[in-house]
């Protein structure tokens, strides 16, 4: 080590010592005592006050209404029309609401017709001030409103298109904490029409949704102590007023109904302030509009809204997932397009990337083992499912046929809502018996294909030559690898030479000397076993190395001996092929490590 490196390491060491002193050890008794608070967060004081107000609302809702004046008494509407989709068990409204009610038993997500969309048997912490989850659902189309196509101006965090005007959340010095609403016309001219709402000093704007006619936007303000309130902005005049009128009450901006009314959820009053009874209301954008109660809720319920979108149907040739993803406004990653493999999607303008995957797996095991933190059984859209936490956020998952479908989002309820909205588009019935790992479950064709490829590779191993090489659909460049080490790229033509297949173990699996996939196959005692594993489940049940990065996303045929006397003789030759073309792109050897 050079003197210069030593100086850098010494500096890091001194900083580490300093951090050790700054963050003293956690008391184990304290950790035990706080476990309940982590699992079910204690309500904040303002919520307790709100709960009292909500209890009053249950016992005597009229008292609260009187406090607000007779002219603002909510009008209870009937349930919205719903349609039952042809496939799947879920009933999704052509326009309506989904409410997750947090109660002693957990969280229930129901639509406004009263049908339960999902049940989750535990209550997680609720984030009131998240962006509106406004999912549009129609006969053939659905999309997320938060995937607004409007460009976000520099220094702003979010923008929507209201007619020809962009409405953006800006200012505050931090793009993630905007404290102003700007209007940007079609020529790029920009002006600030609102800053912090009247009576608010601390806080920031979290989201903005344009009305169907573009004349108004519904904005979400997160005030001091994360108290949320919904505000309506008149785009033409810049006039801003709070939903439900002045006062300290919590409200969530959900979106807009088909008839041009804002959908706002009332949670509770603050510090004894009177407010509307907890529930979801439809409000005309006028200042003095009378709120119409669409759905009464518990005070801690989370609500989502959707409405029918445009009728332009997606191309018929697209897969169910492609159609659903496109309709949701999510972008499908091209790497696995058409194979219904793993999709990495992120709505443009969304603060947090949303991922969605379809892989073969063993239910309730979720196919992101490296990332799953908690997993709980749940009922989703009438079928058995799983919800929980993973590194990237929270997820909901169901089995549908031989696949596990998941939707993830930082918020469990939103993940549930998205998955429940997607279920009718999956093209299969929920709760079908899932696959166990192995090619038997993939059907005889897959089994035959795996055996055939293994037989061809064995033929090449036993008799290397141009003819046996031509029988294998190798790609022009093939990656030859050992374990999870970086594979080497070789030309297809060179594979005819057995020397090309030699790889130096150099300590891998406590071995020294060269090893060759062809030699291992040719010298294997007894028959070989070949198993086809689709992309995305290469790790399930097999004690082998991780897939090399260069071959991630490929299907593989896993070949291993069946007649060995000791694990030291065990090996595996994994043949990676493109999920669509079938071209063999890589061959990797795995050896048992003592």
């Amino acid at each position, binding site marked *: 080590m050079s003197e210069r*490196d030593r100086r850098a390491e010494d500096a890091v060491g001194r900083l580490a010592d300093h951090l050790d002193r700054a963050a003293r050890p956690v008391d*184990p008794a304290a950790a035990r005592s706080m476990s309940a608070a*982590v699992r079910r967060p204690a309500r904040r004081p303002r919520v307790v006050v709100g709960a009292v107000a909500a209890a009053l609302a249950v016992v005597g809702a009229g008292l609260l209404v009187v406090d607000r004046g007779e002219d603002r008494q909510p009008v209870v509407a009937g349930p919205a029309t719903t349609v039952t989709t042809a496939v799947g068990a879920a009933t999704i409204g052509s326009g309506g609401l989904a409410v997750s009610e947090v109660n002693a038993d957990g969280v229930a997500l129901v639509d406004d017709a009263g049908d339960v969309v999902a049940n989750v048997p535990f209550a997680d912490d609720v984030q009131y001030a998240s962006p509106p989850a406004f999912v549009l659902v129609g006969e053939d189309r659905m999309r997320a409103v938060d995937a607004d196509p409007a460009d976000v101006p520099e220094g702003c965090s979010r923008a929507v298109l209201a007619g020809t005007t962009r409405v953006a959340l800006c200012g505050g010095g931090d793009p993630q904490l905007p404290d102003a609403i700007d209007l940007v016309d079609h020529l790029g001219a920009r002006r600030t029409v609102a800053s912090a709402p009247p009576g608010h000093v601390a806080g920031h704007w979290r989201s903005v949704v344009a009305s169907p006619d573009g004349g108004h936007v519904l904005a979400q303000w997160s005030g001091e102590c994360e108290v949320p309130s919904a505000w309506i902005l008149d785009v033409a005049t810049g006039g801003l007023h709070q939903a439900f009128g002045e006062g300290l009450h919590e409200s969530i901006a959900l979106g807009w109904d088909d008839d041009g009314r804002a959908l706002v959820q009332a949670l509770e009053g603050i510090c004894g302030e009177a407010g509307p009874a907890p529930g979801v209301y439809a409000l005309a954008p006028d200042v003095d509009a009378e709120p119409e109660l669409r759905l009464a809720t518990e005070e801690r319920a989370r609500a989502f809204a959707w409405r029918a979108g445009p009728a332009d149907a997606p191309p018929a040739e697209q897969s169910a997932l492609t159609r659903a993803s496109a309709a949701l406004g999510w972008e499908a990653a091209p790497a696995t397009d058409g194979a219904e493999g793993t999709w990495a999607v992120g709505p443009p303008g969304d603060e947090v990337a949303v991922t969605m995957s379809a892989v073969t797996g063993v239910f309730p*095991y979720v196919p992101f083992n490296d990332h799953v*933190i908690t997993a709980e059984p749940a009922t989703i859209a009438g079928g058995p499912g799983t919800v929980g936490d993973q590194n990237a956020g929270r997820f909901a998952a169901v089995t549908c046929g031989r696949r596990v479908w998941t939707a993830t989002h930082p918020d469990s309820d939103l993940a549930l809502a998205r998955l429940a909205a997607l279920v009718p588009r999956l093209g299969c019935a929920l709760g079908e018996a899932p696959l166990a*790992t192995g090619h038997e479950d993939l059907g005889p064709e897959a089994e035959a294909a795996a055996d055939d490829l293994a037989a061809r590779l064995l033929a090449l191993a036993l008799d290397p030559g141009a003819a046996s090489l031509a029988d294998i659909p190798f790609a022009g460049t093939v990656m030859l690898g050992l374990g999870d080490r970086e594979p080497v790229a070789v030309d297809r033509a060179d594979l005819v030479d057995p020397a090309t297949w030699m790889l130096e173990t150099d300590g891998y699996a406590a071995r020294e000397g060269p090893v060759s996939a062809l030699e291992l196959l040719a010298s294997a005692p007894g028959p070989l076993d070949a198993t086809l594993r689709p992309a995305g489940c290469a790790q399930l049940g097999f004690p082998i190395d991780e897939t090399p990065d260069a071959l991630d996303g490929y299907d593989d045929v896993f070949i291993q001996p069946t007649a060995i006397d000791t694990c030291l003789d065990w090996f595996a030759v994994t043949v990676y092929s493109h999920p669509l073309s079938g071209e063999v792109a890589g061959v990797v050897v795995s050896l048992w490590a003592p």
Partner: protein
Amino acid sequence: MVTTWSRLGVDPSLRVPARLPHLSVVARTLCSVLSLGMEVAFVVDVPATDRVATFEALYADVEPRLRRALVAAYGPDAGREATAEALAWAWEHLERLLPMANPAGYLWRVGSTRARRARGRGRAGPWPGAAGDRAGEPTTPEPAVAAALARLTDRQRSAVLLVHGYGYSLPEAAALLGCRVRTLRTHLDRGMAAVRAAVGVDHV
């Protein structure tokens, strides 16, 4: 054909963590087999009388490196809070955690998620480059290095501090952060390049 460990002739006891002496042989075997890919689904029963002692043993094993890793990633305050929340999670899910081959790595992910969630809610900011420079606390000894580390990704910063700050081996740090040694080495190289630049030296 479904392939299992038993068909491969693997001795399952090789994968049983040594800290679980109270488990029966059957349970240890099940631990080994089921922890291959279904850590989240496997649960063992721990008698209530042993629960505190088992947790204390787990705590002694994982707390220091868990705290250091989370502090490295999220700063002293948020990192310590995340450590406390991860350990609270461990206490509540002890039966699920025990069979795991790498509980510290699992808890790092729990704590990391909590910390990122707190960061998302605005309760915790980015990594404090001048940690401890508040009134009554000792001054950061290496402000330039701290500032350089603050500009790294969480993983790069964790790699640098765990390996070069606390002296963990590459496999130990990689296991804790849930990544491969090769990946860790990449984080380390990039992180140390920034540190060298901060102390005014270029790597040769």
